C-alpha cells in the first residue's frame, strides 16, 4: 500500500511525523480525505481532530485551526497548537468543555461568547482525538 508523509508542525516544535496511508481533515470548505498522489492543495482547517490511517489503524490528533498543505507524497499541517491523541489530558479537556458550555449558556457579552465557542470546539476536538467519545 502506498504511503504519504504526514507532518504536523507548530511554532514550537514538530508534533508529528509519520508515513501514513490516508489523512482525513476538516477543512473550512468541508471534510477532506487525502490519499497519496493527491493534487497540490492548500486549505485552512477548522478546529477538529485529524485522522491518520496507518495499516488499517487510525491515529487521531487534535489540531487547533491552522492550515494544510498537500503535495504529491507529503502533507504538512501547520497549526498554532496540536496534540497527539495519547498526550491529551481528557479530564482537563472535559472540564474545559463544561466551562465553555456554562459560559455559552449565560450570554452576557458578544466577545465572551465567541471565545467560549472556540474553547468548546477545542475541548470537543481534544476529547474526540483522545478517543473519549
Amino acid at each position: 500500500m502506498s504511503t504519504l508523509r504526514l507532518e504536523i508542525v507548530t511554532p514550537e516544535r514538530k508534533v508529528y511525523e509519520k508515513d501514513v496511508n490516508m489523512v482525513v481533515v476538516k477543512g473550512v470548505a468541508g471534510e477532506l480525505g487525502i490519499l497519496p498522489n493527491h493534487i497540490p492543495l492548500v486549505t485552512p482547517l477548522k478546529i477538529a481532530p485529524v485522522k491518520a490511517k496507518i495499516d488499517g489503524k487510525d491515529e487521531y490528533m487534535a489540531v487547533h485551526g491552522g492550515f494544510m498543505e498537500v503535495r504529491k507524497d507529503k502533507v504538512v499541517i501547520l497549526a498554532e497548537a496540536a496534540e497527539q491523541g495519547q498526550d491529551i489530558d481528557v479530564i482537563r479537556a472535559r472540564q474545559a468543555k463544561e466551562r465553555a458550555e456554562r459560559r455559552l449558556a449565560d450570554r452576557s457579552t458578544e466577545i465572551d461568547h465567541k471565545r467560549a465557542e472556540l474553547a468548546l470546539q477545542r475541548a470537543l476536538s481534544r476529547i474526540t482525538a483522545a478517543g473519549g467519545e
Partner: protein
Amino acid sequence: MAKGMREIKRSIKSKQNMKQITKAMEMVSAAKLKRAQNAALASRPYADKLREVVFSIAGGSGSVKHPMLQTREVKRTAYLVITSDRGLAGGLNTNLLRKLLITIREKHSSQDQYSVFVIGRKGRDFLRRRNIPIAQEVTGMTDSPTFADVKPIAAAAVQGFENGTYDELVLVYNEFRNAITQIPTLQKLLPLDASELGGAGGAKADYEYEPSAEEVLQVLLPKYAETLVFSALLDNKASEHGARMTAMGNATKNASKMIQQLTLTYNRARQAAITQEIAEIVGGANAQQ
C-alpha cells in the same frame, strides 16, 4: 594590623563574593542561551513553511489583492518593541530603546502619529518614564516562551493594521548574531513587501486553493505576521541570554583583576607594616645600648 589593611581585606572578600555570583550567572546564561537557540531552531520549520506558502500564493498568481500587501500613506505607525524582563545584560535593552527613541523623534512630530506595543518589563518601564503612549503590554515572559504567550499582543497589533488604525507596523528587537554580537533592529513587518514576495522565485508548486486563493491568503497573512513576531521574540530571548553571558563574563574578569590588584596592595601594606615593626624594634634596641 596596620590601618587600611583591614579595609583592603574586607574589600577583597566582597569582590570575591561578587565574582562568585557573576560567574554563576554567566554559566546559567550559557545554559539558557543554548536552550533559547534550540527553541529558535525548532520554530524555524513552521515559519519557513508558512513563508513558502504565502510567497507562492502572493507571488504566483499576481492578481491576489490583500490589504496587508498594500502600502498606504503612513499616518500612524505602530511599534512592537521586544525587550527583556530582567537587566544585567549589558547594553542590550538600552541600545535598543535608544534606537527606538531616536527613530520616533526623527519620524514623528506628535504623539498621535505613533503607538507602542511592548513586551518585557525593561521596555515598559523605559517608555512609561518618558510618557510614551503604550497601546498594550506583556511582561513576565518565561525563558521558553510559547506561541500562546505572544499571540494576543501580536494579534492586536496585526489587527490594528488590518482595520486601518495603523498604516505601518514596525518590529523592534535585538537580532541575535552570536553570544557577543546582538544587533538592535527595526524591521518593517507590515505591510509585507510585495516585491520581496514576488521575487521569492525558487521551486513553486502549483497549488489548488480551497475555497479560493484570496480566502486562504486572508487566513495565512495574519498568521504569518504573528509568526514573525514570535520568531523575533525567540531571537530576542537568545540575544538576552547571550548579552548577559558576555556581560557577566566581563564582570567576572574585572572582579579577578580587582582582586589581584587589591591583593598586591594588601601584601605591600603588610610588608610595610612588618618592616616598620622591625625598624621600631631595632630602633628600640639601639636606644637601650
